[in-house]
């Protein structure tokens, strides 16, 4: 699934990221960054309700190229600046975590390689 399709499905707003052709093969929804680091195996889309620079740091360490903030959370300038510096796409959606994950799963993003 291409990132532009993720944007459409979640009715998300892209705050940073020009590569909407990026291929997303799986996703991980978590507010705990250590759990993301413990269990995610492949490059994925990260969905989170946590708004902190550490979300971008975690994505950087994990080679995660795209992050969606759920529940309408909007990251501050410091987070966007860090994401821009690291080349990590940032989006925000009003969908809550469960619904956002459900919509993506239903569209075929089944988490292969994550668990």
């Amino acid at each position, binding site marked *: 699934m291409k990132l532009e399709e993720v944007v459409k499905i979640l009715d998300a707003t892209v705050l940073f990221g020009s590569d909407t052709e990026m291929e997303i093969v799986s996703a991980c929804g978590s*507010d*705990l*960054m*250590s*759990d993301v*680091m*413990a269990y995610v195996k492949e490059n994925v889309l990260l969905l*989170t309700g*946590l708004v*902190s*620079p*550490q*979300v971008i*740091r*975690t994505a*950087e*360490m*994990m*080679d995660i190229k795209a992050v969606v903030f759920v529940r309408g959370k909007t990251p501050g300038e*410091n987070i966007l600046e860090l994401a821009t510096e690291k080349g990590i796409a940032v989006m925000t959606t009003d969908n809550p975590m469960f619904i956002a994950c459900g919509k993506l799963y239903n569209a075929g993003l089944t988490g292969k390689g994550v668990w």
Partner: protein
Amino acid sequence: MGDNLIKLHYEIPSYDLTYAGEASSSVKKVLVQLGIDPARVKKAAIAMYEAEINAVIHGNGGAADVEISSGRITACISDKGPGIPNLELAMKEGWSTASDEIREMGFGAGMGLPNMKRYADKLDIDTEVGKGTRVTITVDF
């Protein structure tokens, strides 16, 4: 890169998660530039990042000393914190002494040390109550 040894030193700030991870980020960049296998880079970056976060949230800050040779990376993260009274418990997934404030920042889930063990090829922990903790992470290339 022959047998040249690269030595790096970083200061780790205390209780400020805004900048936590800068040392690990810098080390990751160096490893990528050296052309190290991305899977190895990721292992080293995650293990060091968890150690750096621990030094910030539990350890009152500290320092990271990193050595990179052709065969491995060794990252030594030392802090000035309270030390770990029960290392066996601290190594258990989910066991945590972190404050609610730390948990609100997405950490303190009791996965720090277990994650270091998961990703490091070798993990040494030297801790003394009242003095601090030093973790040494080795990842072979």
